[in-house]
């Protein structure tokens, strides 16, 4: 029976809560909460992707586009039309969902590598529009002056406040997804993943489920994009390019495709590797990044999230 255990959740939440406090007391890592903000933003996207890739079995190499749609909807509506940032988030999410439905309906008929290429193409096309629609997006140089977030008179302008904001939203998305996985919807998705003919024979509308999950993951990515835009106060097309989509898939692979924990572990790990740790190696950075990725795929094909189970099994097995 698929059950999400409570102890790791409690431990994870405690960790998130006290992390800034602890990091502040350790010289050398006091800026880690800042990295964790971006890690949290990535987590939001990978939670949706884990539902799409791990549970519904669909690949996407175009999620950077939805991330970008959220960011640009927030950026354009706030800077050009003076919309309230909070209002932009649902608008962006709905826009991303609408695009996902329009693109998903014909794409999700495609299988395997064809679906990968179609989503990749979609992502690249959207990125070209971000770059070329200068009058709206500011072009390749990007868009400046995006306001930060505030609630009543409280400004989320410090690293600490934004940290808790982002991780609060991540927690909400996490619990929503956990509930979904354990519900009839989650079972239906796993059924589709195992056998489409059998799922259809049980009356599960496969196409609708796939599009729903695609749209839901697009909404989460869009929300992440809005949070990114309001934190950075700046966006440019390079942030939402194909290589970010591939990075998302790498997060999934490193963390583990088939578990929501994998999505979180992978996102946090890649965030720290790429934003913080690897740059110590200077020109060897790319090489080490590739080597880590290769070693994990070779030795932990289930991803890092599969590690505890593996260790547990090894400990139990009499040697």
């Amino acid at each position, binding site marked *: 029976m698929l059950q999400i255990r409570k*102890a*790791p959740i*409690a*431990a994870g939440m*405690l*960790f998130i809560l006290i*992390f800034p406090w*602890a*990091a502040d007391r*350790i*010289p*050398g*890592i*006091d*800026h*880690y909460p*800042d*990295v964790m903000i*971006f890690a949290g933003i990535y987590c939001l996207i990978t939670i949706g992707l884990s539902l799409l890739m791990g549970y519904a079995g669909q690949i996407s190499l175009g999620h950077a586009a939805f991330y970008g749609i959220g960011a640009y909807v927030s950026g354009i509506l706030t800077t050009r039309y003076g919309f309230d940032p909070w209002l932009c988030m649902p608008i962006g999410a709905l826009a991303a969902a609408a695009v996902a439905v329009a693109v998903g309906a014909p794409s999700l008929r495609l299988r395997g590598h064809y679906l990968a290429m179609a989503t990749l193409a979609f992502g690249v096309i959207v990125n070209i529009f971000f*770059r*070329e629609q*200068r009058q709206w997006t500011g*072009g*390749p*140089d*990007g868009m*400046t*002056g995006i306001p930060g977030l505030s609630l009543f008179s409280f400004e989320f*302008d410090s*690293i600490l406040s934004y940290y808790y904001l982002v991780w609060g939203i991540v927690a909400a998305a996490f619990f929503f997804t956990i509930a979904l996985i354990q519900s009839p919807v989650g079972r239906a998705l796993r059924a589709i993943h195992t056998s489409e003919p059998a799922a259809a024979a049980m009356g599960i509308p496969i196409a609708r489920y796939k599009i729903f999950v695609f749209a839901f993951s697009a909404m989460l990515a869009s929300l992440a994009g809005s949070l*990114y835009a309001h934190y*950075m*106060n*700046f*966006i*440019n097309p*390079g*942030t939402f390019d194909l290589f970010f989509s591939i990075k998302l898939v790498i997060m999934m692979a490193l963390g583990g495709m088939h578990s929501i924990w994998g999505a979180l572990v992978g996102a946090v790990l890649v965030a*720290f590797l*790429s*934003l*913080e*740790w690897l*740059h*110590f190696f*200077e*020109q060897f*950075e*790319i090489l080490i990044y590739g080597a880590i990725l290769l070693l994990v795929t070779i030795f932990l094909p289930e991803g890092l999230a599969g590690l505890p189970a593996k260790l547990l099994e090894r400990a139990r097995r009499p040697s």
Partner: protein
Amino acid sequence: MMGKKVAAVLLACLLVGGFAISPASAAYKIGALFSVTGGASFLGDPEKKTAEMVVEQINKAGGINGEKIELVVYDDEGDATKCNLFAKKLINQDKVVAVIGPSVSGLSLAVVPVFEKSRTPLISCAASYKIVLNEKSGKPYPWIFKTAQSDSHAVEAIYTQMQKMGISKIAILTVTDGFGASGRQELLRLADQYKIAIVGDEKYDPKDTDMTAQLTKIKGIAPQAIINWSVGPTQVTVMRNWRDLGMQKMVFFQSHGFANRKNIELAAGAAEGVYCPLGACNVAEVLPDDHPQKKVTMDYMQSYMAKYNEPLSSFGGYAWDALYLVADALKAVGPDKAKIRDYLENRKNFIGQHGVFNFSPDDHNGLSKDAFQMVIVKDGDWVLAE
């Protein structure tokens, strides 16, 4: 049991983070953000090398006011997110007094809010005028300066040269990245002012292998001249395509991004007769002896080539100017962010690699179009244009 788990997780995190070196806070600490790797490495790489060389030189000469300076360089890899994080790390953790870089306009724009908010001087090495101009207020951002000539300076230099040559009908080719897009905007904006008609407006991607299609289209329009605005391999390919298509009748102008002798070499002869606006440091040898920048540019060129054994590009010069400006301010007012800012804003007649800088509260770039020398490629080398 759970407490143990939490403790273990925490411990693991701390261990991983542990090798981050705890900062020793030197008084004269300068930060640098360069795109040393990634798509803009042709900018960041010489900038980093130059900055490290300059610091070495200053320290060898006894430092500033008897204090050694320390340079903290981060490679943003051309990524806005990294750049933003590193900027905050330089300010909050490394506690630098000022930062030089980033290498590209997009990233400079990305970190402007960070430096404004933390009230730390930033001297960008990138071109876009938007970096030092708050478009809402029409005034410069108080804490942001830049040493690279604005694209408008390069455009004006090219258009002035065109007027001299009697050219009025041109086509432009720009690359679809920040450099190309900002150049294109200035080319279009200033054309009327110089009575120049842009009859062709083509683009290509930074990773493209061939621009024959775009040039063929331009060939069909038959302008008097072509301006190409890009950096990296594409600017060489486009020139070769131009020569191959037999379009030499249309005079070819490159942007100031052409500023590396390696490009002439790579063009395999196709660069002959190509014009481009360059900073003084590229043409140090051919500058007249009485030129104000003759000495600094010759010094820089000789020491750079001696140290790194590679041809000089003008991008390193941006870092040279930025770093010496900070050093100059430190010498005058000491390690105080606000005083450094005030000093820089009023610095006049600073002789750098890319011109003589005259900053003012209304101009945080301090250069004019005269900062560019118009150069033509002849026998595989630069020659000052008539």
